């Protein structure tokens, strides 16, 4: 489970100040990745390393991420942290790198990879799905509202939810995609409710925005006691839990992920031993711990 | 107080590459019909657009009733009492006739933001009636033909309380009957004290209608005289700067073998049993009123439109022509009546337009033979006296008549056997007309077959060897220069429904 990075370059005794860690996230234009970025920056400050932090405009801009990787790798960084949008494609773009590579949030088989920092979307979704299924009990019916069909992140969350629900005797009656747009999610939710004659106890969503739209539709159609699970644990999502709109959300420790990714990268650069899997953990946020979690989140973005 | 309604002093207007109007002056008296004439590209339309605020001149000044004005847009000119019927139709085809007539005017219901359509339709119908057109004003304007659209334009101008109405070649797309109606209207406007500036290439109209005539040449003022002090020859020589000895330089050529024969051509709703033939070495004229089906006949023959039945023989051989491409391959050239919409690619250069119909023949191997194309273009420009700065000028920038010459050039270059000219002299000046006739003569002399569709009887009579008259999609009869007397009366009678003989 442990790996020592053989040191090809002479960075052994350089001070942290001259070290640059390149970080490319899935995007910088969403709140979740904002926390990861905040963690990265905090680590940069605490550990005294430079970070070069980037991310494409949206989570579907595969090409753009590949371009960023190329651009960054030719700029010369000492370690590389990546949240791959499309693992195979990232692997091919990275090619034969000489620096340690760390995947964050989403794991992938990438050349030069020394460690994965994260939980995995499927694990987090599994946790959220299990929570909902337990709460609703056996024989309940569930719908899943996804992000974008055919997208790796969506696929992982989908798998996690489905596994958890089925293991706990819940039937998944409908899977629809809402393009991660809350407004579309409301439409889809209304239609699912109609299709199932209102016989829905669980709605598992691929993100908090979708959950917000779905919850609003549920509310408008006057359905009661529907368990709505979001994903990401954003401020608005957690606020929605506090307000009673959403039941729970699957929160990955985004901030910790970012922080520990840089930490791990630094270790790898220095030739220290690193874990091949740094589990940053995930938790299900419910009404019980929402307030507390919200405060933590707000603290991150100071 | 000046005794002129409108006065232009020393006005100059430049366009990229040309001075369209140079130190121009013009005086229009209240209540007169003032003719304006000049060669193609002389600057008539430019003068008008300066008067209506469409173009802003670089130099000179304009006075209305003695007050200096400088219009920045057509609205200001309209407010000052100047209305205009432009050379190019400005109809919104998808809107109703009423809406077009009231395009810049609105009658609202009393105390309401909504239009009073009942009243507007009523007025529109009245105005159209006064122009001799009893039509459904609620219908889309685009569903009517060019003639009516032109009348709608005139109605627009009539409806504004104008002191001066400008008409830029209003008769170029009208038939005889409509022209007459228009003249009546113009005279009645004059009676109401409205001045008219009337542009036309048709000298007879000017003599019939105008009190005074101004002649322009190369953007400059040449003369202004009372009509009765002028005659045909003096007017023409003022216009073109030389005398024209013959307006219709007809040559006698020996007709050859049959070139084209059409039998029982039918097209639902448009053509009924059209049969005729045309020979090599002759000019076959097609006369008739607007909408008689002449254009439709030859669009079908050329392959531009499908038809329902009938046979076409070229040089005695039966052919099936399904596209203009096939028509050209059979040795036909078809000069369309609408040069802007159907004849030219306005955004392309003169050079490109000249080779539009035989591009494939201008290539050497895979690529264009630039030298050959250049040479061809130069030849065309000098042969046809096309007034253009260079062969690379965009065609859209040329004056109407010069555009027409480019279209003719295009077809000459295909070296066809049968030339179909649909209204070939529409909108071109007297001098240029003669040039076009000479081109036809040259073709006939070379043994080609020329078919000329025209709504201008003098040119039909002046140039044709034989004349076919059409009416409502049928052939009414045929007259031959050899055996019959060609005169206006006989042809008109046939066109109006009488049989020939």
């Amino acid at each position, binding site marked *: 489970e442990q790996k020592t990075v053989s040191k090809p370059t002479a960075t052994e005794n350089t001070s942290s100040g001259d070290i640059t860690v390149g970080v490319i996230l899935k995007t910088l234009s969403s709140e979740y990745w904002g926390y990861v970025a905040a963690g990265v920056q905090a680590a940069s400050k605490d550990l005294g390393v430079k970070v070069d932090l980037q991310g494409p405009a949206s989570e579907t801009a595969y090409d753009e991420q590949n371009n960023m990787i190329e651009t960054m790798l030719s700029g010369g960084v000492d370690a590389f942290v990546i949240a791959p949008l499309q693992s195979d494609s990232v692997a091919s773009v990275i090619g034969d790198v000489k620096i340690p590579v760390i995947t964050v949030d989403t794991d992938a088989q990438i050349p030069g990879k020394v460690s994965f920092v994260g939980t995995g979307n499927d694990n987090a979704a599994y946790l959220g799905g299990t929570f909902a299924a337990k709460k609703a009990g056996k024989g309940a019916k569930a719908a899943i509202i996804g992000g974008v069909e055919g997208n790796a992140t969506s696929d992982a969350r989908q798998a996690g939810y489905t596994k958890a629900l089925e293991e706990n005797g819940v039937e998944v009656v409908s899977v629809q995609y809402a393009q991660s747009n809350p407004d579309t999610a409301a439409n889809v939710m209304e239609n699912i409710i*109609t299709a199932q004659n209102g016989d829905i106890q669980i709605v598992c969503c691929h993100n908090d925005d979708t959950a917000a739209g779905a919850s*609003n539709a549920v509310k408008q159609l006057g359905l009661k006691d529907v368990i709505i699970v979001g994903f990401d644990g954003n401020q608005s999502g957690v606020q929605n839990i506090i307000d009673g709109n959403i039941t729970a959300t699957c929160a990955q420790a985004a901030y910790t992920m970012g922080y520990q990714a840089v930490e791990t990268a630094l270790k790898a650069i220095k030739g220290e031993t690193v874990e091949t899997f740094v589990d940053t953990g995930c938790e299900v946020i419910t009404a019980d711990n929402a307030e507390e979690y919200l405060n933590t989140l707000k603290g991150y973005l100071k | 107080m000046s005794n002129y309604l409108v006065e232009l002093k020393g006005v100059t207007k430049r366009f990229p590459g040309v001075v369209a109007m140079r130190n121009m002056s013009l005086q229009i008296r209240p209540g007169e019909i003032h003719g304006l004439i000049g060669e193609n590209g002389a600057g008539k339309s430019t003068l008008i657009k300066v008067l*209506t605020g469409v173009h802003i001149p670089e130099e000179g000044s304009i006075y209305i009733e003695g007050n200096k004005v400088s219009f920045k847009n057509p*609205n200001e000119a309209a407010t000052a009492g100047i209305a205009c019927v432009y050379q190019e139709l400005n109809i919104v085809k998808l809107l109703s006739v009423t809406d077009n007539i009231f395009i810049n005017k609105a009658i609202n219901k009393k105390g309401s933001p909504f239009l009073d359509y009942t009243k507007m339709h009523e007025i529109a119908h009245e105005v159209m009636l006064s122009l001799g057109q009893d039509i459904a004003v609620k219908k889309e304007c685009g569903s009517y033909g060019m003639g009516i659209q032109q009348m709608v334009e005139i109605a627009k101008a009539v409806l504004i309380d104008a002191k001066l109405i400008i008409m830029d070649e209003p008769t170029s797309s009208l038939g005889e009957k409509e022209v007459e109606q228009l003249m009546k209207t113009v005279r009645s406007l004059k009676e109401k004290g409205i001045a008219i500036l009337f542009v036309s290439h048709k000298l007879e109209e000017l003599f019939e209608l105008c009190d005074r005539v101004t002649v322009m040449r190369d953007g400059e003022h040449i003369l202004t005289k009372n009509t009765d002090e002028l005659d045909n020859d003096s007017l023409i020589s003022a216009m073109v700067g030389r005398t024209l000895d013959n307006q219709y330089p007809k040559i006698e050529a020996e007709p050859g073998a049959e070139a084209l024969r059409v039998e029982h051509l039918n097209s639902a709703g448009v053509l009924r049993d059209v049969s005729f033939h045309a020979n090599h070495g002759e000019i076959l004229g097609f006369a008739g009123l607007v909408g008689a089906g002449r254009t439709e006949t030859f669009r079908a023959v050329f392959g531009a439109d499908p038809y329902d039945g009938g046979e076409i023989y070229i040089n005695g051989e039966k052919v099936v022509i399904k596209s203009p491409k096939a028509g050209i391959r059979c040795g036909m050239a078809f000069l369309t009546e609408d040069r802007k919409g159907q004849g030219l690619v306005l955004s392309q250069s003169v050079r490109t337009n000249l080779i539009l119909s035989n591009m494939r023949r201008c290539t050497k191997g895979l690529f264009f033979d630039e030298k050959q194309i250049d040479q061809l273009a130069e030849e065309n420009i000098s042969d046809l006296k096309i007034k253009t700065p260079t062969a690379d000028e965009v065609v859209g920038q040329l004056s109407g008549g010069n555009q027409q010459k480019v279209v003719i050039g295009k077809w000459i270059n295909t070296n066809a056997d049968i030339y179909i000219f649909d209204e070939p002299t529409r909108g071109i000046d007297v001098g240029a007309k003669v040039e076009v006739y000479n081109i036809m003569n040259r073709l006939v002399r070379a043994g080609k077959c020329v078919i000329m569709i025209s709504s201008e009887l003098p040119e039909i009579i002046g140039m044709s060897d034989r004349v076919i008259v059409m009416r409502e999609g049928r052939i009414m009869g045929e007259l031959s220069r050899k055996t019959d007397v060609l005169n206006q009366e006989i042809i008109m009678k046939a066109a109006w429904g009488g049989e020939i003989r």
Partner: protein
Amino acid sequence: MKTKKMKEILGKVAPLLALVLLFIILSLATEKFFTLNNMMNILRQTAVNGLISAAMLVVLITAGIDLSVGANAILCACMMGMLKTSFGITNSLVLILVCIITGVFIGFLNGILLTKMHLPHPFVSTLGMKNVLCGLALFVVSTKTISDFPAAVTFLGSSNLFKVSGGFSGIPLCFIVLILIYIVYHFFLNKTALGRMIYCVGGNPEAARLSGINSDNILIFVYSLSGFMCSIAALVIVGRSAVANPSAAISPYDTDAIAACIIGGASFMGGKGTIWGTLIGALMISTIRNGLTLLNTSSSVQYIVIGLVIIAAVFIDVTRTRMEAKAKRLAAK
């Protein structure tokens, strides 16, 4: 004469017939479709696209296009979000006012770019604007989704009239407002001088110019109106989804709206299009989406069906026009 009138009327209701046909097919496909509550769902789901389509229609009539409509609506929503989170403003009136001002201002800018700065075709300028607005939307809320809007802001998008708890889901207020707006539009476009000038500018800009119509001002007005409709759409979006999500700005709201207008008889060449046709177009799109979800089809099928419907709708329209022209020609003699 009578059959001619009949045919004319038939021509006008042809798109409506297509909609009815669609209803019949879907009713046969699933019994869940033709229920009162599902009809209300369709109305609810038509509102946003209906409003944005109204924004698109006027610019299409002027032979223009506005690709920034969706991004504009989302920016309007995010502006409200920003006021709430960054400045702590919760006064609904202020929020709504800022929303509308933002929308109109963006539209006005589009108009200025097109006319005063002489940019060639609004496709380009509004495409640029769409990108700028996407960026601004992310920027003003620091990429965060904003929730918890005051009830008066979400009112328009979330209220239902005559709702019966557990039974009838109620007539969505947003659709009623949509209809009211459409009625105003109808009178505006058909019965006022300004409305007619808009058709004029689109049908033949040169004629409009030569007739002394100030095309520039009309175009600026049209794009501002488009912006205004976007801001109303923003209120409905916020009401329906309860959040303002900046990353939704890149969503293809614009293509859905274009599709609705074109299905309803508008044309890229300008001068054509009616508001009722647009309504049918918008209803058609949401009905298809609704039906496909009820049938639990996959995304791939949904894409394909929507694509085919867009193509079929214009194809039918074109064919009908050609047939009519032919019939007219045959009847002429």
